[in-house]
């Protein structure tokens, strides 16, 4: 095609796009892409794992909500009512651990083990048997997660109404030990009480959660570059020729980012308090202390990513690949209860899962060390495990 003389070095075609040009770039790009095993694995596995895990985790309807029960009646009619709750897959009652007082019930909810409590007052069965008027049961709901609280409330009321209705029908037909009492007899009146967030504002739940996620993401990104950047520029080689200890290097890298992360934390807490008008019910200082532990854990995740990757690009890919699913399975938006057990295993390996409980517990419920010491212990354990793993990985690489 080229009939131009050698003096003219113009391309033969002045077209905007040429097939040969596009093809040669396309081919080169494809070869490079396939030659990076990390990227290939990333492309193939990430979407599949993300879809499967998160799909399984969040497409489930809410169920298996653990309910704490204070049965002060303990007679037949109350046991029938509890059976009605048992028969729904929505609630789950641990029959071996009833509590005796409302204080104990409230404590169970405050600790975060239960989202809902049912109190059946003394004389409940007698009232039912009398077949007159109405009797009360109390439903206490943790209002932290506003939407879940609403669902729980609706579900509990529906179960009680349905149960009353069934009872009436059964007694009308003589299928029960209870005496025939007619259709217009005792009505069970549920009294609901929402704890901590009586107005059920969604922001109370979401803002501290978002804050946790922002801090998590930022701090992981801080350190995920820390080692890999030095490897890429070659400064690591020079550094390792000095008598510096690996543990010194790792801890020294983490501390400045921990300070920055903590300052960021305080800033965002300020925004939460003054801009979104969400007050911290618990101790501000306790929240600061737990946040430092969380920040160090996140930084340790970043450090481990950094010792694993060959380039900064890989570090970003891996960070995002880990962050996206962890947002969905940590309980940030979707509750953990309905998730399948194998997803829950991952959930309970994530520091974020524990910290979400901590920050919501302190901000909304006013929790302190007595409720959250287990969370703190696990976070501390995770951060030392991750730091240890980074040091080990790094030492293995240079040996």
């Amino acid at each position, binding site marked *: 095609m080229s009939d131009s003389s050698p003096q003219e070095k113009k391309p033969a075609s002045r077209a905007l796009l040429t097939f040969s040009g596009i093809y040669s770039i396309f081919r080169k790009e494809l070869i490079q892409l396939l030659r990076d095993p990390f990227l290939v694995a990333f492309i193939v596995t990430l979407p599949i794992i993300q879809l499967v895990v998160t799909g399984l985790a969040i497409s489930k309807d809410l169920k298996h909500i653990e309910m704490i029960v204070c049965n002060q009646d303990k007679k037949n009619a109350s046991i029938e009512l509890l059976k009605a709750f048992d028969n729904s897959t929505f609630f789950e009652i641990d029959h071996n651990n009833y509590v005796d007082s409302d204080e104990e019930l409230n404590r169970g909810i405050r600790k975060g083990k239960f989202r809902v409590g049912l109190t059946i007052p003394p004389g409940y069965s007698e009232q039912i048997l009398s077949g007159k008027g109405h009797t009360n049961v109390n439903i206490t709901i943790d209002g932290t997660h506003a939407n879940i609280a609403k669902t729980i409330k609706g579900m509990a009321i529906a179960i009680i109404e349905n149960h009353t209705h069934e009872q009436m029908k059964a007694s009308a037909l003589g299928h029960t030990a209870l005496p025939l009492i007619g259709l217009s007899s005792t009505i069970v009146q549920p009294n609901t009480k929402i704890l901590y967030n009586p107005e059920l504002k969604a922001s109370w739940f979401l803002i501290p959660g978002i804050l946790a996620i922002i801090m998590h993401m930022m701090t992981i990104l801080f350190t995920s570059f820390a080692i890999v950047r030095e490897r890429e*520029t*070659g*400064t*690591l*080689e*020079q*550094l*390792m*020729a*000095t*008598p*510096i*200890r690996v543990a010194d290097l790792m801890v020294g890298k983490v501390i400045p980012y921990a300070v920055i992360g903590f300052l960021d934390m305080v800033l965002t807490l300020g925004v939460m308090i003054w801009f979104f008008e969400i007050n911290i019910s618990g101790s501000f200082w306790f929240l600061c202390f737990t946040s430092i532990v969380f920040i160090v854990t996140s930084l340790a995740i970043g450090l481990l990513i950094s010792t694993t990757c060959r380039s900064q690009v890989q570090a970003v890919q891996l960070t995002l690949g880990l962050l996206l699913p962890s947002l969905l399975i940590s309980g940030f938006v979707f509750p953990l209860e309905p998730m399948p057990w194998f997803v829950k295993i991952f959930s309970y390996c994530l520091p974020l899962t524990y910290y979400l409980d901590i920050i919501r517990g302190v901000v909304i419920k006013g929790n302190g060390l007595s409720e959250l010491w287990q969370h703190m212990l696990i976070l501390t354990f995770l951060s030392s495990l991750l730091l240890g793993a980074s040091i080990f990985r790094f030492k293995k690489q*240079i*040996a």
Partner: protein
Amino acid sequence: MPLAATNDMQPAIMTENLVRRFGENIAVNNLNLTISRGEIFGFLGPNGSGKSTTIKMLCGLLSPTSGQARVAGIDVNKDPEYIRSKIGYMPQKFSLYEDLTVTENIEFYSKLYGVTGHAGNIRKKEVIELVGVGKYHKHLGRELSGGWKQRLALCCALVHNPEIIFLDEPTASMDPVARRELWDLLFSLASSGVTLFVTTHYMDEAERCSSVGYIYNSRLIVSGGPDELKQVREVVGQDNQRYEIACRPLVASFNIIKAIEYVEDVTIFGQALHVVVPAHINEHQLRHDLHSAGIALQSIRPIEPSLEDVFVTLTKANIKYDEEMRQNRLSSLRPAPSGVAHVR
């Protein structure tokens, strides 16, 4: 075999059957080296021959698969961290912080090496003066030219007064003047008793070293003083003679000479050819044969082999040996061709 206890008379570096494998591959195969204190040791070899792996093992950055090495009297298998406090290392690529100033880089490394306090300040001043980076103290690492970057790297590698300095191709990205200046600096260091372990691709630099080792395909083929190496039997032998022939046109003559039956080797050296012929062919006969082959001869003279000749000859001999080994694995008892002039 245990090596002798530490004392000043001990060699700076001593290795015994040092081996490093990476999976199936042998990067360094049975390396035996002895380098005396105050020496400038030039470590040569093609890319991928095992130079960097050797340096990394001697710096305690990589543990040997087998064999022993003592650096500054310390066993690399036992205390690599202690070794790092006694040596300086200057990688091939500029490996200091480009976003720190010259002073900040020096400060950082002196802290890592524990060079602090009053004595530390004196030492820092001394090194900065020696290397001459003082006038750039406020410049960022990235603002320096190649030569000054290497000087800064040298400064950081020297700040703790190391006994041995490893320099991996220190002049690779330098202009000739900077190259000369750096070598002057290296000589003055060596004269003050520091041992230098330098890798290079430049033959003129190798000639300036007090001893040289040549590694090819993970084996140390030869080591010794540059003058000793030129006497290696494999290269000079009793049975051949090397001539420098100036003639025009060079490439055409090269091809013609290569075709002459008795010529063992021809190499282009700048504007001349180096030709190796059997000893029984004298200068007169060679001149005659070149004339009759139609070459316009300008000059011809018998020469001693250069270091480059030594390495080229030995590399070719080793390639041939490797090929024979591949074809007939039974002959593995025969040792690889190597120079005999091991250092002192």
